[in-house]
């Protein structure tokens, strides 16, 4: 066996930690350095966890994730909308208060600074939730590119413990902990409500908590933003696990987070999207509104559209024995290298080995066959429709 990582008692001093770090370690989670953050990959098999169980819990019941490593940028002021419109490719003017949308921040070349969820919290107030590894880069980018607008830009990343509650039973679990009427909150809408945590001696009441019906799992679910002090964070997390017992709740780590988003074809920065990949290549056309006022990257995207894409993101399913993984080469049937895998893994719910890959457009037709190079051997795969998984419509 090569390189088994055991979990030492505490992380290196230089790594960043969320407020729930001690809780994860105390639960026996396997930890990993994710973009400079000490995060749980999976929780122990001895408590019914592990990547596969965690993944299945989210698909059939409910799982909770500590996603506090993600970043939060608030834009507020008379020209907040104009500022958001300039840096974000989707059309934020379509958002009413309480509504959110998926979007991306682009470089002038039409490539990605980051993907983002834009939430309209008020008349002139927007919250951008961004990736963990790009917190500082994004904040600098947003601040530097909105100076011309009458709008304050604040980095609120350290102010919140962000917990994702995901799965068909997420609404049942969270409803038990808030008096906000969650049935009135549609998918990709937000509300503010209290998070009620009762314990023996004290009634904790965190009013005005942001509750968003968003997520990264291709399931129904919520993300809540509670105060980031360790005591509050642990209280809310543990209470979710307790109240959630009747729904089969499990704590979930980054391992399941990745397999869940992959099944749903949700992009991961540094893989499907990056500063060298443009919007058309990534297939995110529907989130890019070219007919709205000027935004950063628009001119380059116009040109890229007329030039035509040189590569396209496709879904692959392995047809021969083997697991395609991040970075593996993709070859045509003759063994010639044509592209690479951006993300690849077993898919626990689908029970297949799947991957996303960049290939030239002529190899992008569903049903087409390619080979993935796995330790020197070409292993058969087929181009399949994406997303690989879509959650069932509620009856």
């Amino acid at each position: 066996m090569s390189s088994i990582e055991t979990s030492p008692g505490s992380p290196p001093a230089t790594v960043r930690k969320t407020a729930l770090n001690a809780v994860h370690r105390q639960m026996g989670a396997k930890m990993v350095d994710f973009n400079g953050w000490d995060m749980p990959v999976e929780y122990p098999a001895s408590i019914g966890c592990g990547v596969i169980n965690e993944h299945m819990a989210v698909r059939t019941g409910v799982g909770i994730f500590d996603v506090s490593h993600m970043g939060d940028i608030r834009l507020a002021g008379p020209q907040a909308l104009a500022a958001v419109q300039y840096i974000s490719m989707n059309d934020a003017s379509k958002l009413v208060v309480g509504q959110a949308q998926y979007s991306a921040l682009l470089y002038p070349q039409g490539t990605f600074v980051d993907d983002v969820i834009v939430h309209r919290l008020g008349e002139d107030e927007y919250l951008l939730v961004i990736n963990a590894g790009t917190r500082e880069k994004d904040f600098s980018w947003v601040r530097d590119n909105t100076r011309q607008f009458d709008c304050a830009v604040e980095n609120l990343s350290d102010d919140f413990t962000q917990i994702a509650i995901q799965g068909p039973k997420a609404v049942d679990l969270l409803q038990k902990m808030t008096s906000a009427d969650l049935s009135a909150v549609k998918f990709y809408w937000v509300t503010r409500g209290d998070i009620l945590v009762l314990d023996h001696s004290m009634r904790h009441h965190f009013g005005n908590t942001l509750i968003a019906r968003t997520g990264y799992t291709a399931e129904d679910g919520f993300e809540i933003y509670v105060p980031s002090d360790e005591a509050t964070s642990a209280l809310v997390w543990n209470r979710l696990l307790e109240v959630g017992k009747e729904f089969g709740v499990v704590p979930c780590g980054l391992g399941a987070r990745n397999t869940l988003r992959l099944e749903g074809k949700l992009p991961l920065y540094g893989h499907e999207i990056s500063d060298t990949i443009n919007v058309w290549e990534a297939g995110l056309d529907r989130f890019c509104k070219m007919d709205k006022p000027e935004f950063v990257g628009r001119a380059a995207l116009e040109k890229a559209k007329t030039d035509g894409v040189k590569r396209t993101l496709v879904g692959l399913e392995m047809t021969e024995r083997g697991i395609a993984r991040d970075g593996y080469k993709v070859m045509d049937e003759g063994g010639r290298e044509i592209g690479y895998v951006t993300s690849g893994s077993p898919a626990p719910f689908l029970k297949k080995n799947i991957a996303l890959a960049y290939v030239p457009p002529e190899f992008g037709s569903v049903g087409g066959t390619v080979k993935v190079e796995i330790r020197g051997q070409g292993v058969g795969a087929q181009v399949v429709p994406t997303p690989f998984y879509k959650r069932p419509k509620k009856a």
Partner: protein
Amino acid sequence: MAYPTDRKYTKQHEWVKVVGQQAAVGITDHAQEALGDIVFVELPKVGADLTAGNSFGTVESVKAVSDLYAPVTGTVTEINADLATSPEKVNKDPHGSWMLKMSLRNAGEIGDLLSAAAYEQFVAEEGGN
């Protein structure tokens, strides 16, 4: 945990159980626990020659690929076909799930391997406990 005393162990977390001139090889409980859910096992073909210390295959969890190292030198005589369809058996019963059986070129190599007690100690020290 108490590791079975009917076999020897390597620092790469494999076990070797010798019966006469044949050896069955698998991975330890510590290994399966550290790996997490095992989804794929890649084994050599019957007849393949293995050299002690060299990689002979891979075991994959959802997240990672790990090499398997030959504990002793010899030739593969049998592989566990079960693991192609049910790799999770390695998690459920690591010491009962042999991966391959091989002939022993040099019975003396077994003496270099760790006893159950020595392996337990090695695991304890490696974990920084």
